[in-house]
């Protein structure tokens, strides 16, 4: 049997890495297990001429497409939004675009402000120092003074506006709508051993330059220097409990398929909004027949995915093309509730540059803008290097019928049941998507775009996995308490997007990591009464 550790963290992605680094100064023995491996920047697609092809192969967003040994299948047939993730040290930060907004102060008070969903048991002010700390650790580029947020520090200067940001920014000025350079976890100068961004344009498939803030390059080297151990290619199947109802450790399979038990004093889950409920549900036992930490019945429920709308257009003048960080500016003009719109809560836009030649061709043909035959070449040249657009990220309100369960038939390579997703769009989300498409088209027309295309909801956009082990003070209405500890199992913590009470209308990684750092701080503060 493995030697007992003080803290076992499951998952080496955004939240697990932040947690490990923060707890390292306690000098406890800390071990992190991850089912994937370390990434090698020389393996990332932008090193090769086949860089676009690999985005749909071994760097595809869907684990069902990649089907690598680190992956597990996800049954998402019963969802209009398909699941995207990445399994490996760094987790989803390997494939994210580095777009890095925080939740807004109002996001933590949705019930009080708008009478829907629930308030969080913590607020923006509580998280603010951890947002700031995380920005420094991840190396966030931004421009101070964004009127959409309370004042926040600038770690380094923003990513370039480029032609895209300037053309669309002028259009937004004409409309009188908010915009600002995006906060991005992308180094715009040499920073803590990371080289500055050289505009490879491939943030979404690993950064060959190492400029993007991925936790294998930010938190993990620091945590390892502080003697945190990370054990890759180890897939946890279930968490074990003792007669006192406390977690005793976790069973896992190593790369050779051999099963082990890792004993631990504290178990921390950081497996994202699908992996975490999957593991809790698969940890059902005589003591916990409905799954671990599930006396509320809410493990796996309230899944939130952020419905996306995509609006893109083409311009007569050359734009940035595939060069530069894909996202350059954002708009939070429609973030807050306005009753006249017919829906509650709101969305933000992230404005994106163009595409490489392969994606220009495949999307152009799919959208009917690019014919087969002799006219293909002229049409291609009107599209390539001339496109820009936006994604609208709509706040997804929690609904209990949107959930993760265990698939009765489908299993991963180790025989562990696969997660099954049951999700439908709410009427509120549909109205919000429609609104975002209509306003997005207006922005593109104001900017002079032609050949405008829209998609809503965007099918392969289940990047943000939240809500399936929600935080709260009432054990009957939540899975973990206001500092991340399970109501039912007092040495079990959850720190990933599962604990989100509401989703906000922005990408969640910054907030996920701030919450992880906050929970780590709570653990350290309460260390001598942690299980009371």
């Amino acid at each position, binding site marked *: 049997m493995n030697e007992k550790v003080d803290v076992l963290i499951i998952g080496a992605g955004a939240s697990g890495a932040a947690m490990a680094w923060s707890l390292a100064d306690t000098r406890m023995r800390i071990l992190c297990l991850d089912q994937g491996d370390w990434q090698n920047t020389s393996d990332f697609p*932008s*090193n*090769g001429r*086949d*860089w*676009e*092809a690999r985005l749909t*192969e*071994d760097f595809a967003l869907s*684990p069902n*497409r990649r*089907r*690598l040994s680190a*992956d597990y*299948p996800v049954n998402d047939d019963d969802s209009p939004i398909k699941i995207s993730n990445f399994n490996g040290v760094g987790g989803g930060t390997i494939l994210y675009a580095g777009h890095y907004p925080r939740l*807004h*102060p*109002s996001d*933590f*008070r949705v019930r009080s402000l708008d009478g829907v969903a629930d308030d969080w048991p913590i*607020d*923006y002010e509580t998280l603010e120092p951890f947002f700031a700390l995380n920005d420094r650790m991840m190396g966030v580029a931004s*421009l101070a003074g964004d*009127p*959409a947020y*309370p004042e926040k520090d600038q770690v380094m200067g923003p990513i*370039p*506006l*480029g032609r895209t940001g*300037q053309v669309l*920014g002028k259009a937004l000025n004409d409309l*009188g709508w*908010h915009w600002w*350079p995006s906060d991005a976890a992308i180094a715009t100068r040499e920073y803590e051993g990371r080289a500055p961004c*050289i*505009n*490879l*344009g491939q943030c979404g498939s690993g950064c*060959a*330059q190492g400029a993007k803030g991925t936790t294998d390059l930010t938190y993990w080297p620091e945590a390892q220097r502080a003697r945190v151990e990370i054990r890759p290619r180890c897939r946890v199947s279930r968490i074990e409990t003792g007669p006192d109802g406390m977690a005793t450790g976790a069973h896992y399979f190593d790369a050779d398929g051999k099963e082990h038990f890792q004993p631990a004093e504290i178990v921390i889950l950081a497996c994202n909004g699908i992996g975490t409920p999957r593991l809790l549900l698969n940890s059902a036992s005589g003591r916990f027949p409905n799954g671990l930490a599930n006396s509320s019945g809410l493990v796996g429920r309230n899944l939130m995915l952020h419905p996306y709308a995509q609006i893109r257009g083409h311009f007569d003048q050359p734009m*940035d093309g*595939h*060069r*530069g960080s894909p996202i350059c500016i954002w708009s*939070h003009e429609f973030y807050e509730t306005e009753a006249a719109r017919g829906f509650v809560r709101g969305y933000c836009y992230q404005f994106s540059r163009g595409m*490489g*030649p*392969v994606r*220009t*061709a*495949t999307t152009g*043909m*799919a959208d009917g803008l690019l014919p*087969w*035959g002799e006219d*293909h*070449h002229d049409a291609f040249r009107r599209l390539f290097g001339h496109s820009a657009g936006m994604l609208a990220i709509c706040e997804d309100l929690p609904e209990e019928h949107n959930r993760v369960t265990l698939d009765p*038939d489908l*299993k991963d*390579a180790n025989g562990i049941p696969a997660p099954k997703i049951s999700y439908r769009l709410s009427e509120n989300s549909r109205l919000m998507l429609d609104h975002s498409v209509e306003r997005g088209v207006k922005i593109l027309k104001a900017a002079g775009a032609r050949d405008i295309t829209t998609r809503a909801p965007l099918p392969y956009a289940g990047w943000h996995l939240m809500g399936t082990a929600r935080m709260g003070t009432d054990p009957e209405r939540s899975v973990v308490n206001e500092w991340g500890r399970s109501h039912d199992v007092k040495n079990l913590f959850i720190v990933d997007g599962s604990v989100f009470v509401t989703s906000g209308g922005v990408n969640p990684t910054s907030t996920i990591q701030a919450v992880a750092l906050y929970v780590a701080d709570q653990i350290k503060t309460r260390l001598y009464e942690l299980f009371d």
Partner: protein
Amino acid sequence: MTQTMTDQAETPPFDDNDGTLLAIVGHMIPASARHGVPGADDPAIYADILRSVGRDRQALAEALAAVETRAGAGFAALSRAEQAAVLQEFRADEPALASVIEAVTARCYYRDDRVMASIGIEVRPPFPEGYAVEEGDLSLLDPVRARGPIWRAP
């Protein structure tokens, strides 16, 4: 049902013995003397396509079978005009299958040296040279600043 997830080994080239794929990609992206580019049925590009089908192997086989079914008696044996008519119907009726052929073709066509040079893109991977992007004029934000804070206090 246990799903095997394995790190993909190199797979053998796609089998297009009856020439259906070759004929289709030639219709999709023909050579252009005016632009000085080969068609997707150029021997080097076609060989790259066959080598690079990857995870689309099964879907591509289904797409080609659907074309063959529409053609009746051998797509490659039809006249060029007859082939074009079959493909027009195929694209209209089965866009998902058509998109598979488009994807496997575009992935290789648009990384060919001759094609890349023609569309004005440097013939190299993005790394390590990277690209230049205009920093942009941050004074464009003056009207946004002038409006003042828009965030909602809880």
